[in-house]
């Protein structure tokens, strides 16, 4: 619903709202909106800000509007009816925005705010304001257009939690954006372990957290064909000689699989593997290695990793 900046038919009781209008609370506007609105030239008035009835000319001139590809990470309620939405945008990195009436106005956002929905997000922002104002999200691809089950929900939760926790705000990472879209397309009911493994391997690599896997990080002895050892307290793999107490083995087969994953985009990798080739047990050691690496760098346990572990055991 658009509240155009048009004072002509504004009911009298709106005037009394000036002290509580959103823009002023957030420091967007100074002075009363009446003056601002009346002072605004025609062109500025056309920068219609939905739901923001305290717009003034100074604010409107500084507003930049965007419509960019984004992946919805999560949303949570703010006040009675609004939502705060965390988005991974392609060009602006991770941003947070307020969806006014997002809780109530299902018509404006519908299912578009479900986690891992690929959307075209329209938002407005002002310099030095942390939160943008999210106006609409058009769905490009929704995880709900395919069959859902607990396993698929757990995989989507894993992508969501990792991206939300690992990426800094406003730091565009095109490769991570493309990786996420690619693995999402392959995350289907009864077929989650390949895309989850692929994602868990590539994210620490793209964030610079994963040393080269083909050699022992201590003595540089080649590990290809033999496998290596990993430990929750260290990066990368080591040879048998340098394995610390409590280290786990990454088999030669899983190491080879990781090296193949690094060479091939997910679609090509999926095609070469075939659908049936990925039971939960396959490359479980590789997933433990990569998720341990993620958890160590994030300095916290990931709930979705725990859910995936329990699912793999079941």
């Amino acid at each position, binding site marked *: 619903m658009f509240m155009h900046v048009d004072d002509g038919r504004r009911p009298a009781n709106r005037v009394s709202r000036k002290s509580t209008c959103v823009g002023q609370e957030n420091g967007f506007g100074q002075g009363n909106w009446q003056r601002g609105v009346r002072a605004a030239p025609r062109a500025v008035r056309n920068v219609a800000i939905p739901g923001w009835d305290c717009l003034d000319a100074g604010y409107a001139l500084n507003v930049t509007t965007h419509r960019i590809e984004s992946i919805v990470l999560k949303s949570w309620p703010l006040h009675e009816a609004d939502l705060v939405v965390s988005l991974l945008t392609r060009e602006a990195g991770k941003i947070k925005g307020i969806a006014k009436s997002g809780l109530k106005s299902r018509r404006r956002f519908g299912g578009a705010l479900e986690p891992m929905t690929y959307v075209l997000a329209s938002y407005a922002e002002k310099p030095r304001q942390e939160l943008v104002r999210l106006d609409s999200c058009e769905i490009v691809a*929704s995880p709900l*257009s395919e069959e859902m*089950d*607990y396993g698929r*929900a757990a995989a989507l939760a894993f992508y969501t939690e990792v991206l939300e926790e690992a990426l800094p705000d406003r730091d565009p990472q095109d490769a991570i954006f493309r990786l996420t879209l690619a693995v999402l397309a392959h995350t289907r009911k009864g077929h989650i372990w390949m895309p989850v493994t692929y994602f868990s391997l590539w994210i620490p690599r793209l964030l610079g957290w994963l040393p080269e896997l083909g050699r022992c990080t201590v003595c540089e002895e080649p590990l290809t064909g033999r496998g290596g050892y990993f430990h929750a307290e260290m990066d990368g793999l080591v040879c048998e000689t340098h394995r610390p107490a409590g280290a786990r083995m990454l088999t030669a087969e899983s190491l080879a699989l990781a090296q193949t994953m690094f060479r091939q985009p997910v679609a090509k990798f999926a095609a070469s593997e075939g659908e049936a080739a990925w039971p939960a047990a396959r490359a479980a050691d590789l997933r433990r290695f990569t998720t341990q690496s993620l958890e160590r760098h994030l300095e916290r346990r990931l*709930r979705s990793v725990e859910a995936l572990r329990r699912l793999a055991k079941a």
Partner: protein
Amino acid sequence: MARFAEPMARLIEELRKLPGIGTKSAQRMAFHILRASEADAEALADAVRDLKAKLRLCSVCNNITDVDPCIYCASPTRNQRLVCVVEEPTSIASVEKSRGYNGVYHVLHGTLSPLHGVGPEHLRTGNLLVRVERGEVDEVILATSPTVEGEATAAYLADLLRPLKVRATRIATGVPAGSDIEYADEVTMTRAIEGRREV
């Protein structure tokens, strides 16, 4: 912050724990209660105490109730063989609003939620399965939300019910009444088409 006498400070502290209540509102409420009549203050205290003392979960359907079984499960006019599975006790009110439903309920108290540590073992499904296994149910309507977590929960329940040979149905979702189909997103539209019916 001003210093209050201990009983006043304690009440303010307790009120402040309520959702949406800040220090100022809590102080206003506390002073209101102080000025209120003895009887009004007693009534409020009793209401709070009774809420915890008298309310419990219905042993049949998990609804929040003061009598067990709850009014729906004990009703002789309701179809006890038709069970609508909902996420929360508050969802019952939404279904009841339709006035078109005359069956009973089963409340899960949540959905599967990998991000909140809620796995299949945490869902309250035990008493539902018992009802079905005893042959007391003809149809289970899965009325969880059409969200990722609600759909995952419905799929999980459908898997549980399948071997029990009971009819399991999913509520139709689609274009909201009174809205323009122009505003329906692609997922909503797809579901509206899938859930179409003969006219």
